Each structure stands twice: as C-alpha cells, then as structure tokens.
C-alpha cells in the first residue's frame, strides 16, 4: 500500500487542476479513429468484429488477391484486381481458376510475395494438416469463401485455386482472404516452437503487404499503424504519418471523444448527436451501404406470409421517409435488396413504396379487416451489428402496420440468440412461433445478398434461409448465375434472380444503413463509397 501513496496524492492534486488541454496537440499527421468494436479486431490477417474488422485491420495492414474499388462515391463498388493482376477460369474444368500475381510486392518484413505465399495463406484456414493451420481463423474466413478448397503453385507468380463446385463468385469471395507473411510467421514459429504461440506472436507483431504496418499494439485499447513506404501501389501509398485505432463501443463516449478532440474520426455517431457534431464544425460522411435491414418472412406451414398479397401489403404500408426522421436522415430507402443503379437490379415489376390505399386494398382482398387483423410475430434484438436502432424501428413498424390490419407482436431477445436462431429456421422451436425474423445483412457478395435466402440448398441448418423460401425456379436462377463465368453475363443472371426476389417479396425491405461517420475537417482526401468499407490509405491531414 505504501507504494500507492504518492499516486493518490498526485491524483488528488490533479483533480484540483481542472483545466488541462483535453489531448496533446497533434502536430504530426496522425489520424485517430474511434471504432464501434469493443476490442481491436484481430491483427493476424483474418480480422474478427465483422466488416469493421476488415475495414480497419484487414485492408490497412494486408491485401487480398482481389479488392473492392473504393474510389467512387456515386457508383456501386465492384471487385478489382489487387495482388492478382488477372484471373481466368479453366474452360474445361470450371472448378479450377488461374490467378496471375504481381511480381513487385514484398511483405513488411522484407520477404517476397509469390505463389507460395498464396498457397500458404489458403492452407492456414483450409488445410488441417498444414503446420500453420489455425482453427481460430477458420470461423471468420471459411464461410466467406464457401467453395474454395485448395491452391497449387504453377510458377513463381501464377497460382491455381480449386473450388468444390463451379462457382463464379470466387473472385468476389477472395476479397476476404488476406495475405500474411509466411516467412515472418516461420520466424515466430522458430522462436516459440508451437503454432498457436506463433500466431499469437504474429498477431502482436504482424506482417502483411498492406499500405500500413503495425508499430504498437495494446490489446483492447489501441493499435498504432505507420505508413509502409515501400507500398506497391502509388495511388494508395499513405501521406499520413500514422493511424491510431481506438475501440469505443459506447456511442456517447465516442461522440464525446470526438467533440473533445481525443479522436479525429468516429464510426457510427448516434443520429441524435449528429446535429451537435455538425454544429461544432465536424464533417459527416454517409452513403447508402450494401446492407438491408429486413423482416425475413416465414414460408412455413400456417404462416400468414404465404399469401403474396400480405407480403406486398406489408412492404407498402409504412412510410420509409418518416422512418428516416428517426435515423436523422441517415438511412437509404430500399427499392429491393440492391438499388436501381446496381448491375444486379433487373427491373422488378413490384415497386416497393409507401401506398397505404393499395396496401389496405390488398389486405381486404386477402380477407383481413380492422376487426379481423392478421397476427404476426417478429423476432428481433435490442442491439447488434448492423441492426441500426432495432427497437425504435420495429416499434415504428408495429405502429404503422396497424393501419393495414396487422397485429404485430415483437419478440425481443438477446442479439446472439437471434443470430443463432437465424440458422435454425422458422420451423425450429427456437423461432418461438415467430413469422418473421429481423437480422440485417450485407449485400456485396451475391451469395450473402441473395443465394443463401432463396435456395432450397440453404435451408437451415445449412445456411440462413430462415423462412424456408425456395423452389425450382429460384434454384435454376441461382445455378445459372453460379455457372456463368463472364462477368457481365453473370451480373445479368443475378439481375434476373434479384428481380424475381423483389417480385416474390420474401422480405419486408425496411432500410439500408447509410453508415454515417464523423470526421474532423483536418482530414482530407476522404471518399465515402457505396460500401461497408472506406479506404484510409489515400487520406491526408492538414
């Protein structure tokens, strides 16, 4: 106890001196970012914490073979070459792909990036017999490239990837496989003697090919990045002197940290705090994201949603513009799973809009009235990744749908439980009699956006077709898209699928998240694409 005495006295002194500058003046161009995650996403190559992880410890420290184009604000973000310069499927065996690699890339530790490194990185999550196989990275990775099976070196800068079935989505999936340095891991392995410890050491001192490298890491508190001066892509070679990532899960703490100058950028400020943030001279960046906040409807026996008129009526019965008010305007109004500007749009004949009269007409036709309302139960959570403001939003739907003879009951349960139930399906007892489930999802990848919700092959427990929606027509549309290897033709096939999904309406499409983030005006060169991601590398500060 004696040791703490001076500490206590010092603390007392400090508490009497209240006027201390809130943060040391940052002369260097250090960009400090407050994330919503409660912890630093994993740094060993395959981040956790959902897409926030990919955004901050994936794309910064590492590169994938392919990447998202994040340079445009007004067009859908598409997949572009990255560490791979080009790729092609083998026309004789469409489960085999050849990827040509850049020959001028080195990892942060100085070792060269080549075909062997690609094979090594495929093995780390897919080959259990490999010395560096790491089960803890499998979970966040394998499901994002469900068909990839193995990789083989063809020559130093050419690699062949094999899938379990023909799958034209592979290049999109590969944005999620980040290339970690095999040589650096091997050095850690030689020091520690076992794979698990080697990965732990690698996480504390990572090495990738990305525009930033890690300089300091305090778990749960802070990650410091410095620019990689030898980065291979001049357009993405950082001008910043450094980046600091700070987890600030509590929305008010995040806002206060920005307002008091502790950080220069916060993710997801609460819509109610945005007017004050703007009034204090900060800039808000937002753009509708490839994200859907839906009610996913049940097609199980006895579900009121089996009648398409009821599904359409629910989509027409609430005013999405009014809902925007709740979210401070930071919400995209959905016209489907993707918007009309997207290559997968496909001109569906059902127009998602607010049309109370038409909704009431459909409901009357379906046999419902104010005295004979249809009872629907919706399972949702009070919080969760991508869920925006689930309770107020669901309560708003509950209120609005009353006008169209819906008697909505909300079954609010814990987020992780909803998420688990999502894999169990509407027929499972975990559904607790619910006719719809409210889990929001990302729509960058066709499998995640559409296929998993509309294929008979993805009924629970295989994947998230919670509502058991699917038939031969949809299975054929999906097979068509998956086996079309020309990009434009594949997109056209996906557009046909999307149009049919909107017309059949297995969802109530409620909102797209606009993903607001607030930044100090010192930050320049910011491009907010229509994506979950944003590229830090080209940013600067003045």
């Amino acid at each position, binding site marked *: 106890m004696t040791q703490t005495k001076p500490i206590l006295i010092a603390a007392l002194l400090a508490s009497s001196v209240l006027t201390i500058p809130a943060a040391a003046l940052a002369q260097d161009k250090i960009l400090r970012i407050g994330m919503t995650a409660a912890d630093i996403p994993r740094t060993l190559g395959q981040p956790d914490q959902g897409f926030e992880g990919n955004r901050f410890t994936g794309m910064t420290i590492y590169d994938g073979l392919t990447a998202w184009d994040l340079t445009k604000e007004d067009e859908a973000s598409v997949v572009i070459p990255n560490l791979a310069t080009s790729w092609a499927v083998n026309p004789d065996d469409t489960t085999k792909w050849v990827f040509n690699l850049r020959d001028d890339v080195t990892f942060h530790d100085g070792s060269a990036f080549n075909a062997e490194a690609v094979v090594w990185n495929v093995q780390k999550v897919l080959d259990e017999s490999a010395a560096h196989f790491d089960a803890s990275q499998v979970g966040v990775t394998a499901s994002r490239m469900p068909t990839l099976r193995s990789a083989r070196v063809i020559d130093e800068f050419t690699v062949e990837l094999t899938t379990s079935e023909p799958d034209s989505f592979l290049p999109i999936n590969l944005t999620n496989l980040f290339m970690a340095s095999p040589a650096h891991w091997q050095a850690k392995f030689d020091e520690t003697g076992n794979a698990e410890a080697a990965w732990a050491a690698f996480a504390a001192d990572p090495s990738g090919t990305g525009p930033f490298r890690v300089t300091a890491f305090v778990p749960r508190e802070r990650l410091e990045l410095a620019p990689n001066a030898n980065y291979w892509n001049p357009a993405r070679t950082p001008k910043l002197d450094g980046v600091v990532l700070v987890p600030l899960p509590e*929305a008010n703490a995040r806002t206060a940290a920005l307002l008091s100058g502790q950080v220069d950028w916060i993710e997801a400020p*609460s819509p*109610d*705090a945005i*007017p004050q943030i703007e009034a204090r001279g900060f800039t808000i960046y937002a753009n509708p994201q490839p994200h859907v906040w839906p009610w996913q409807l049940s097609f199980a026996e006895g579900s009121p949603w089996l009648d398409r008129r009821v599904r359409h009526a629910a989509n027409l019965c609430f005013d999405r513009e009014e809902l925007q008010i*709740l979210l401070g305007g930071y919400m995209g109004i959905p016209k489907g799973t993707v918007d009309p500007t997207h290559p997968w749009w496909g001109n569906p004949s059902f127009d998602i809009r607010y049309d109370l009269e038409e909704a009431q007409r459909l409901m009357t036709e379906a046999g419902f009235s104010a005295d004979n309302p249809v009872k629907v139960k919706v399972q949702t959570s*009070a919080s969760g990744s991508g869920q925006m403001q689930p309770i107020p939003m669901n*309560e708003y739907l509950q209120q609005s749908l009353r006008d169209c003879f819906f008697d909505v009951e909300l079954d609010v349960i814990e987020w992780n439980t909803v998420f688990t139930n999502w894999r169990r399906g509407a027929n499972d007892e975990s559904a607790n009699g619910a006719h719809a489930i409210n889990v929001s999802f990302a729509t960058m990848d066709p499998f995640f956006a559409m296929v998993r919700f509309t294929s008979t092959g993805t009924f629970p427990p295989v994947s998230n077709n919670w509502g058991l929606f699917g038939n031969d027509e949809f299975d054929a549309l999906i097979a068509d898209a998956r086996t079309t290897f020309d990009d434009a033709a594949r997109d056209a096939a996906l557009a046909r699928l999307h149009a049919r999904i909107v017309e059949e309406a297995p969802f109530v499409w409620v909102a797209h998240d606009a993903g607001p983030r607030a930044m100090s005006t010192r930050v320049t060169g910011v491009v907010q694409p229509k994506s979950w991601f944003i590229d830090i590398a080209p940013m600067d500060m003045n």
Partner: protein
Amino acid sequence: MADISVSHPVITPVRSAGYWQNVGARLVRDKTAMAAAAVLLLLLLAAIFAPLVAPLDPLEGRLVNRLKPIGTPGHVLGTDELGRDMLSRLIWGGRLSLLMGVTPVVMAFFLGSALGILAGYAGGWTNTLIMRTVDVFYAFPSVLLAVALSGALGAGLGNALLSLTVVFIPPIARVAESVTTRLRSSDFIEAARASGAGAFTIVRVHVLGNVLGPIFVYATSLIAVSMILASGLSFLGLGVRPPNPEWGLMLNTLRTAIYAQPWVAALPGAMIFMVSISFNLLSDGLRSAMEVRQ
C-alpha cells in the same frame, strides 16, 4: 455497488406494543422521513392508477413529434425518441421500476430471514450447510453477482428479478443468523425454554419479534440499492425489454439523445434518484426511530 453490511441490532427481550407505538410516534415527527414517505406514496399511487393519471398512451407516438423539449404544449415533460409522451411513460414506468426495485428485496427478506433464522435456531450441521452456502454467494461483490447472473440467464424481467433476489439473500440471511444465534443463547430464551415453551412458540414470539424488526429496517435501506442495481441492469441491456416503459431502460434508450435533449434524457435518471433517495431517507428515519431505548 453499495455496501450491504449492517450494524448488528441490539438484542432486548420482546418489545412491547408500547415500544412500537413509540417508534411510530417518533417516525411521524421526523419531517424528512415523512416527506420521503409522501413522495414514495405519491409515486406509488401514480403508478397504480397510471391508466387514470397518465395523460396519454405510453406506447403511442409519432416520429415527427420525437424529442420535443420540456414544456411543449400537450407534452409537459417532452417526448422520447419515438415521440411518446415522457410524462405518461415516467408514470407508467414507475410500475416496472418500483416492482423491480422492491420485489427482490421483499423476496430476499422472506427467504433470507427464513434461512438465517433456521440456521441460527437449529445450529449444528444445518447451520454449517446453510451458512457456508450463503458465504459462497456473499463472497461475490453484489454488482458482479447480479451482472454475471443476469448475463448468464439472459435479458428479461424475470431473470433480472431472480438475479437481484439471489444478490440480497446472503446479507439478510447472515444478519438473521447472527442475531438468532446470539438470541438463542441469551437468558430470556433459556428462561422461556425452562418454562416449557415449545420451539415453535419460542421462534414465533421471541425470535421473530426481535429479529424481523431490525432486518426489516435493513431491508428498506436495500431497496435503494436494488433500484439502482435493477435500473443498471436495464441500462446494460440485461433487464426489462422494450417497449415496456421502465426508468433504467428509458435512460438506456434515451442516452444517445442526451446531445439533442439533455433535460428530457436526464429525466428517467432523476426519477431513479428521487425514489432511491426517498427510500434511503425513510429507512434512516425508521432506524433512528427504532434506536429509542425503553
């Protein structure tokens, strides 16, 4: 959170009816305690008669009316994040909040006293078994136990009430046991035994008369702790589920609005504060009124 240790009450032979009258009279003269009691009574009545008292439906609102300031015509205390009337929600919220604050203490009062008295009176192995189990739970800081239990059981009113009851049983049982043990060996119980009174009579007349009073006073002071803990659980997302109005949950859902309407967002916290301070003051009054020596 708050310390739930207690000073051991003085043991005296059975208190007469005159003593309790005296306590009552002293309590009534205590202006602070009476004011606190009046506030609590008022809030309780408002909560019970919420359907009559509340001006508007606590679950109904329009988004265009959201987050109106205090003093808006038609919404005296403003509106919440969904445009619902704050006054009505605060009145209705009293139901769940008071229920969540009081129920665990009441349940723990009965269960804890029963366990403690049983342990103290029976002694021997029964005592060891009960009290060592109680000790294990007492070895957890109260907030930690409440959060861990409701975190494990999952959010919900029932689970929160259960967790809080488990938190409050050990301190009450310990007090009950220690008072009963000392009482058991005291002269007048020996005398009662010698005069042929049965065990049940001894417990009923002497033990209950001497033990329950002090524990009751102690328990009233726990209600304030329970109010804060219960609303804290809701604040963390481990208590009552929406859309039910409950002060802790309202504080949670309104906390991001604190930049837009700080005063409105602070109201549920002020209600929790008011109730908890009233229970503390009333409990203080009761304690000092009972300290009177005959």
